[in-house]
Structures are given as structure tokens and as C-alpha cells.
């Protein structure tokens, strides 16, 4: 046993990990900016970069600052009313799903937990369908995201009650409980749709919404999604130390002073808000919450204080790029966004599952 070494570097933040963090953001931030611009610039109608910048400048900056604008009305509509909101929605949906993934993975102590795979996604769909069927969505635009969050919360409570015993969640049980809950809630959503198919207008609305994707997303969708995603991320950022300790096990967390029950309640609510907000505007988009946290964890490590914001930012960018790919790879048709993310995330999911069963965890 050596004596106390006062000259030690600060124990938990080594200079190396600080450098790694700066490098990560040094790479990521330009990519974020470029992806956002590229996603606005590239599309079926060719619009020059300078026009794009002019429109955005004109809309964002105070009128006095902008020089004379040489943009046609059509270009302005395409850029500002079609592409920009779509890209922003994609960004917040991706950020929300990735952050939800981080929270769920800590809550279930399992890197395979993902919002659309273990139940809350289908729960949000059911909530959304209920808000259409009851006509609430017509009376208040807020009812759709709120009902989606409520549905996600319900699904999480069911899955948690089924899969977790004494603070331990075995992978197999978690996935089975998730599949069962998803199937049940999905069936209920389809049942509601079938019963209401006679009301063609509502049925059409529901079908379009359930298909998911990001086409024809407007500024309304931005306002329905972004504030909740920001709220959810802020709430989870306040709980990163609880998340870290919960990730080591509920008993360990409790012995170090975490009020486990209230913390879990708050985190479940947070995950439901994030998932509900994303599903409400984009439907079920799988694997983002699995893929992104996993990749970021490989680079930055599992500490949630760094993992959470980095995953949210990466998730947003990832989905913007996936959406760009989905609508440009096979023109003039758009590939559904969920297909692109599943093609990226499916193989990783299988790989992680195999690895867990071989006893090597993340």
C-alpha cells in the first residue's frame, strides 16, 4: 500500500479522455453542420447552395441585415416550407430516439434495449391511433404527441414489470417481454384502425401516420417534436449520475445513495417522453436507439454525462443522413426511412445478441 499520492491527475477525467472528447466534437460538429445543409440542398428539384443560404439567411436574420434577395417564390417554398422542416424533424427524431436508447440501456442495464424494439414504440403508435380515433387529434394538435408519450409509458411499465425481477433484467426476458408487449399493443392499434376503417377520412389519416417516415413534414411537426425532445434530453442530462450507477445494478446504486425507485420512475417517464415525441411525428423508426449509443460508447466510453449529449447529436445527424439517402438513392421514388435504418442497425443487433450469448458484453 503506497502513501497518498497528491500529484495524481484528476482521477476520473484523464487528459486522454478529455482529448478524445475534444477530437470527437471537433469531427462531429462540422459533420452535423454539413449534413444539415446538404440535406436541405440535395433533392429532386435542383436548387443551388447560394439560393439555399439566401433563403435561410432571409428567414432567420432580421430583415435589416439581409441584402436584396434573388429567390423565386417556388424556391422559397421548397427550401423553407418543405426541406428545412423535414431536416429539422429528422434531426430531433434521431436525437430523441438515440437519447431514449441511452436511457433505456442504463435502465435495463442492457446495451440491446432500444425504444422501438422493446415496446415503447408500439405503445406510442397505439397512443397516436387512439388520439386519431377519438378525434382528439382534430381538437388539439398536442394530443398526438401527448397520447404517444402516454402509450410509450404504458408499454414501458408493462415491459418493466414483466422483464425485471429484483433489479435484474435478463436479456432474453427483456426481448421476449418487448416482443410480446409490442405484438399486443400493435394488435390493439390495428384493431382500432380496422374498426374505424368505415370512417375513411380518419382511417386514411391513421394509415398515413402509421406508415411513418418523414415525407411532407411541416413546421407544425417541428413544434410538436422538438420541444419535447429538448425537454427529454434536458431531463436525462440531469440524471446522468443516477444512470451511471443504475448501470452497475440497482443494489449498488442504492448502496451509494441513489433513490432507486424514484429515479427509475423519472427515467421511465423521460424515455417515454423521448420515444413518444419521436414516434408522434415520424412513426416507428427502428435501430437508431441501438446503433448510435453503441457507436458513441465505443469511442467515448459508457459514462452517461458524455454519452448522452454526444449520442443525441450523433443520432440527429445519423437520421438526417439516412433520410437524405432514403430520398435520393432511387429517384424518383423514396425508400422508406425505416428500411434504411434497419439495414444499418439490423446486422449490429444480431452481432450484439450473439456476443451477449457468448458471454462477452459491451
Amino acid at each position, binding site marked *: 500500500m503506497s502513501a497518498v499520492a497528491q500529484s*495524481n491527475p484528476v*482521477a*476520473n477525467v484523464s487528459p486522454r479522455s478529455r482529448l478524445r472528447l475534444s477530437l470527437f466534437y471537433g469531427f462531429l460538429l462540422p459533420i452535423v453542420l454539413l449534413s444539415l445543409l446538404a440535406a436541405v440542398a440535395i433533392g429532386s428539384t435542383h436548387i443551388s447552395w447560394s439560393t439555399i443560404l439566401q433563403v435561410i439567411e432571409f428567414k432567420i436574420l432580421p430583415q435589416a441585415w439581409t441584402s436584396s434577395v434573388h429567390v423565386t417564390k417556388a424556391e422559397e417554398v421548397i427550401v423553407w416550407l418543405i426541406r428545412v422542416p423535414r431536416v429539422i424533424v429528422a434531426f430531433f427524431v434521431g436525437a430523441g430516439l438515440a437519447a431514449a436508447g441511452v436511457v433505456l440501456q442504463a435502465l435495463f442495464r442492457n446495451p440491446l434495449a432500444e425504444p422501438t424494439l422493446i415496446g415503447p414504440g408500439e405503445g406510442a403508435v397505439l397512443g397516436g391511433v387512439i388520439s386519431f380515433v377519438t378525434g382528439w387529434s382534430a381538437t388539439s394538435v398536442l394530443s398526438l404527441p401527448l397520447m404517444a408519450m402516454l402509450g410509450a409509458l404504458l408499454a414501458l411499465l408493462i415491459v418493466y414489470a414483466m422483464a425485471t425481477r429484483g433489479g435484474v433484467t435478463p436479456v432474453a426476458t427483456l426481448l421476449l417481454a418487448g416482443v410480446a408487449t409490442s405484438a399486443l399493443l400493435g394488435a390493439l392499434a390495428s384493431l382500432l384502425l380496422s374498426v374505424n376503417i368505415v370512417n375513411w377520412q380518419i382511417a386514411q389519416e391513421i394509415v398515413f401516420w402509421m406508415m411513418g417516415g418523414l415525407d411532407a413534414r411541416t413546421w407544425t411537426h417541428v413544434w410538436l417534436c422538438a420541444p419535447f425532445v429538448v425537454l427529454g434530453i434536458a431531463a436525462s442530462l440531469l440524471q446522468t449520475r443516477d444512470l*451511471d*450507477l443504475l448501470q452497475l445494478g440497482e*443494489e*449498488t446504486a442504492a*448502496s451509494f445513495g441513489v433513490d432507486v425507485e424514484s429515479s427509475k420512475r423519472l427515467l421511465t417517464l423521460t424515455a417515454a417522453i423521448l420515444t413518444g415525441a419521436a414516434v408522434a411525428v415520424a412513426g416507428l423508426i427502428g435501430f437508431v436507439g441501438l446503433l448510435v449509443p453503441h457507436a458513441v460508447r465505443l469511442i467515448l466510453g459508457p459514462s452517461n454525462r458524455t454519452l448522452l449529449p454526444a449520442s443525441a447529436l450523433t443520432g440527429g445527424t445519423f437520421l438526417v443522413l439516412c433520410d437524405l439517402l432514403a430520398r435520393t438513392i432511387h429517384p424518383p421514388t423514396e425508400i422508406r426511412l425505416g428500411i434504411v435504418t434497419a439495414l444499418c442497425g439490423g446486422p449490429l443487433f444480431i452481432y450484439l445478441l450473439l456476443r451477449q450469448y457468448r458471454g462477452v458484453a459491451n
Partner: protein
Amino acid sequence: MTALIGPNGSGKSTLLRLLAGLWRPENGEMLIDGKAIHSFARKEMARRVAFVPQETQIDFAFTVGEILAMGRYAHRGRFSPQTQVDHAAINSAAAYCDITHLIGRAINTLSGGERQRVLIARSLVVEPEFILLDEPTANLDIHHALDVLQLCESLSRQGKTVIVATHDFNLVLRYVTRLILLQGGLLIAEGRQEEVLGRQTIQEVFHVEAEMIPMKTGQPVYVFYPVPVARTQNGSVAEPGNMD
């Protein structure tokens, strides 16, 4: 340093969890300084009593530094950043347990002995009065087991109350000053080794014959033999323990 001993299911782990305030007793009360344990706030309890669980499976690649920093949870507010006091506690615990060189390593890449030292260091980071360890030497080879026990003993000499639940009382005898023997959730005996671990008691509680061999160090070493078991014709085993 106190050892909690007893056969499987005798309530060693349960007692540790009750002492750590992780579980609430169904009947009666656990007291610290005359005050019921469950009346302490969760964080206050965590600052006073550190609990080192048995065999912690950690699936995520936290670094040792991050693991140690988590020990300061109960000392920090939700919004307060890590202070010099926190750093000092982390650094001195790491130095004390001789794991300073492991600070940047991922916890799931360590050997069993290193890992146990890290978990003990994390309990020191808390700066508790009581340290409770559940089977700290399980899964360790003899060298690392002694190493860990030595560490525990030095902590108790520093004025911490150290309680170790263990199966291997031969191993801990040299280090502990007090033994508590449990069976079926009941206290059977309590005190020094010669008061607690008589041949008769060992046979009644553990259902084995024990022979005490005196050593130069003063402590005896126990050697165990199975109690002769009477097997019936169909192969089932007659209840041992009533042989005499």
C-alpha cells in the same frame, strides 16, 4: 474487523443488506447510534455505510476512475461539480488500495483481484464509518484473497468498522477480532474464535467434523471431515447431525 459466518442460507447476506439499509426488516428495527436505519435519508445512509456486493457483473466498460468517482454520489448535489475534496477522496482511496495505475483501465478488463480492490477502493471513496463486504474473497486465488483481507484489516485499524460475510473462516481468522455465527437466520454464537468455533458448534451448524490444529501464529487451523452418512437402500441420505 468482524466476520459473519454460517452455512448457505443462514442469513449472512440478508443481515449485511439490512445493515446497509438496502432492505427493510419485516419485524423489529435495525439501529445505528440508537436511530432506526430506515429513518435515515438514502444519501445519509450511503455516506455512513458502504456496501461491497458479491461478484458484481459490470457489463459496461466504465474506467476505474469513473467507477471510483461514482462513490462520491452521496456527497454531491445534483448540480454541483466535482470538488477538490472529491478528487482527494478518490485519489487517496486509489493510492491506499494500490490501484492508481489502473485508473484509466476499463473495469471489465481487470483480473478478479484487481477488480475486488477497485470495488473496495470505491467504498473508501465514500469515506464511510462502516464497510460491509459480502464474500470479498470468493473467486480469488489465495494470494489475492489474503491481499484483500489484509486491506480490510488495515481499514479496520484505521477506525472503520469492517464486517465481512464469508464462508472461508480459516482464511479470515488471522484478521478478524470478532466472529458472528448465524444459522437459519438466528444468532448462534458471537465473540472470539475460541468462544464461537468449538468442535461441537461446528458439527451442529455445518454438519461436518472439525479438527483444530494449533499453529505458531496462535490461531488454530480447522480441517474438516464429512460426518459419516448412513445411506439407505434406495440411495437417499439419512438426516446427518444426529449421529451422536
